[in-house]
């Protein structure tokens, strides 16, 4: 390929990459693709799609990764194209806008002024310098600072307002690129997982969501307590709260002890964030009053439902079952007793002392004193180094769209030329947004210029 042809190809490629047609097409394709993703249930196992929609559709789904559409190659491709188009468009247009603002046309010709959307002309008496001074004074007070240029006896005045609003569109475009970059950074260097910690326990690794593998935290987190707070007089939860303590090398980290973590109030530590997301009952903790049948001192026995507890004579006991209300006789726990010889026995533990079995089949009588739930808390754990970039991008996005649509770059030109003893005035204006409001302003200004000057003349 010869160099000329190569540069032609490059120019064609660049021109189509920066074209607005491409912007519109990618916007509509992104919108359409996103619609599709909300209609097809996402992230089900592939076998589920095969079962529901048949093998052919399932193969199509697999090829286009429609089961995880927002992370599919073609959706990323579209986003990439969108980003490239944004960047190309901005690079193509920004220099022109920059030049227009920083080096405006200070000495436009009369025909150029006449072609502006706002335009009028009239004759002024007096000296050209005095008129220019008065106009400058008035425009400065009512519109913006004035730049005066003189050439061949002709005087030009130029003033502009809210020129920065022209950058709104480009700030918006850059903001989108920054947000996408933040997404990429988070995707590459971030991770997402969860931990479940029973009350009183601690964990030092998390389970990754995507890879189904674990990852060490580099420290441990202990759950001191989990509680659910209900709205008074109802069963609607008001708040889920975990008290978490961070441990480094087994030692509590100052300032990170019993930190309350609630929904909307996560815990941040070493680049990771712990969000309250789930909870459940880990075990029940039973308290029994145990009386030896042989006649000894009764003693307390506290045990959780998932463990066995030892009794003084070498036997051990476990809770086999629990009924909150047994035949109208209150709560009861069924116990299984393992004797040292390998035999097994059973016992029922009621709360009501009348019902305690003293049948002698078991060497102990158990009385159920209290039952408490021991919770586990489920925490989502994230590390996303892209988040600061995303927030910075969001800030720019809001600022950029506001600048682009709520403000308007307004320009005003005056040309003064002495003709046959009178001064010929040309006044022209242009606004890139809110033209109607500017037209009104222009009209008022031109009226005041025509009246004000003759009044201020000595």
């Amino acid at each position: 390929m010869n160099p000329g042809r190569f540069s032609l190809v490059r120019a064609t490629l660049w021109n189509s990459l920066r074209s607005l047609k491409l912007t519109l097409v990618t916007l509509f394709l992104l919108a359409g693709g996103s619609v599709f993703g909300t209609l097809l249930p996402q992230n089900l196992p592939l076998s589920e799609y095969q079962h529901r929609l048949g093998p052919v559709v399932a193969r199509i789904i697999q090829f286009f990764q429609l089961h995880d559409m927002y992370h599919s190659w073609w959706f990323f491709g579209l986003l990439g194209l969108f980003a490239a188009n944004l960047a190309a468009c901005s690079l193509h247009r920004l220099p022109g806008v920059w030049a227009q603002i920083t080096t405006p046309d200070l000495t436009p010709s009369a025909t150029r002024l006449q072609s502006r959307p706002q335009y009028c002309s009239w004759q002024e008496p007096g000296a050209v310098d005095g008129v220019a001074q008065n106009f400058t004074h008035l425009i400065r007070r009512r519109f913006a600072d004035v730049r005066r240029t003189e050439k061949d006896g002709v005087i030009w005045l130029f003033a502009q307002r809210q020129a920065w609003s022209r950058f709104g569109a480009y700030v918006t475009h850059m903001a989108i690129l920054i947000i996408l970059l933040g997404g990429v950074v988070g995707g590459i260097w971030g991770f997402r997982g969860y931990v479940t910690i029973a009350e009183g326990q601690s964990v030092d690794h998390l389970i990754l969501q995507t890879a189904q593998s674990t990852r060490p935290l580099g420290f441990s987190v202990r759950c001191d307590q989990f509680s659910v707070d209900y709205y008074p007089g109802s069963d609607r939860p008001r708040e889920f709260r975990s008290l978490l303590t961070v441990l480094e090398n087994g030692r509590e980290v100052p300032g990170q002890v019993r930190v309350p973590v609630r929904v909307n109030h996560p815990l941040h530590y070493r680049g990771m964030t712990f969000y309250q997301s789930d909870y459940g009952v880990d075990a029940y903790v039973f308290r029994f009053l145990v009386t030896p049948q042989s006649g000894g001192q009764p003693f307390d026995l506290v045990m959780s439902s998932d463990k066995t507890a030892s009794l003084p004579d070498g036997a051990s006991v476990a809770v086999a079952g629990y009924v909150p209300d047994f035949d109208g006789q209150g709560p009861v726990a069924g116990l299984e007793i393992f004797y040292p010889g390998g035999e097994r026995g059973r016992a029922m533990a009621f709360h009501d002392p009348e019902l305690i079995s003293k049948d002698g089949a078991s060497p102990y009588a158990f009385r159920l004193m209290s039952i408490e739930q021991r919770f586990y808390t489920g925490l989502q754990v994230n590390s996303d180094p892209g988040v600061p970039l995303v927030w910075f991008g969001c800030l720019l996005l809001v600022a950029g769209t506001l600048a682009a649509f709520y403000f308007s770059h307004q320009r005003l030109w005056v040309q003064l030329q002495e003709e046959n003893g009178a001064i010929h005035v040309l006044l022209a204006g242009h606004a890139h947004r809110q033209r109607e409001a500017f037209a009104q302003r222009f009209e008022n200004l031109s009226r005041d210029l025509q009246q004000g000057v003759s009044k201020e003349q000595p």
Partner: protein
Amino acid sequence: MTSFNLLSGATSAYFLAFWLMVTYAALHREVLGRIGVGFTWLGFISHGAGIGLRWYESYQLPGGVGHAPFANFYESVVFFGWAIVLAFLLLDLRLRRRVLGVFVLPLVLVCMGWAQLSGRDAIEPLMPALRSRWLTYHVISCFLAYGAFAMSFCVSAMYLLKQTAHGDARGVGRWRGFLNLFPDSDTLDDINYRAVAVGFPIWTVGIVTGAAWANYAWGRYWSWDPKETWSLIVWFVYAAFLHARLTRGWTGRATAWLAIGGFAATLFCYLGVNLLLTGLHSYGG
């Protein structure tokens, strides 16, 4: 006086205003239109007071259930109606073409009627995920944008009606008087653009506050939940609208249809997602 009374009063005022404007459109008596707008203002004030009073009432209930009144379907649809009326009245202050009310007020009446018929006007305590100050910022910005987009939809419908009637010589006779009350086509086209230009940055704020909140509550700023996705679709459509109009110079029918498509997406984002799809925003419906 309870918030329910105030909101019912607002509904009645809108109902009266709507029929006054229909009569104005039929008889071309300007004074009827003016009274209609007066009733709309009356309804709007009562409506706003009702929302404010409901906010206050929620803090008077025992058990600390106080919250901004944007938490369930009833509250949301009432606020949606209020945002539309706000946008309409702001537009009316500048435009003073009352016939617009014939198109806007039915939307508002559907909202208010739906709210009252749903019968779920009890103040409900917030679920933990909603207990955040972001609720207020997020909902207010989204709904203000809804109001602006609703205006763009109404003037686009008027524009297309006017254009279609002009093209059809037989039909014009009967409707000419009605159509003559419309602002001219260029003005309608311009309002369409301006409503979108006003709504778009507010919608952007709505999406950004939503993402910020999601990051606090769920640990990710974007999870492609149907509501999030649809809000982005709406953003894409109006971004396309603005580029087509400002840079490629689309006007008239093309942008009118684009605005109608945009509002259809907006309505689906607001209602369709909750009624038809499942996701994290399920409480709103």
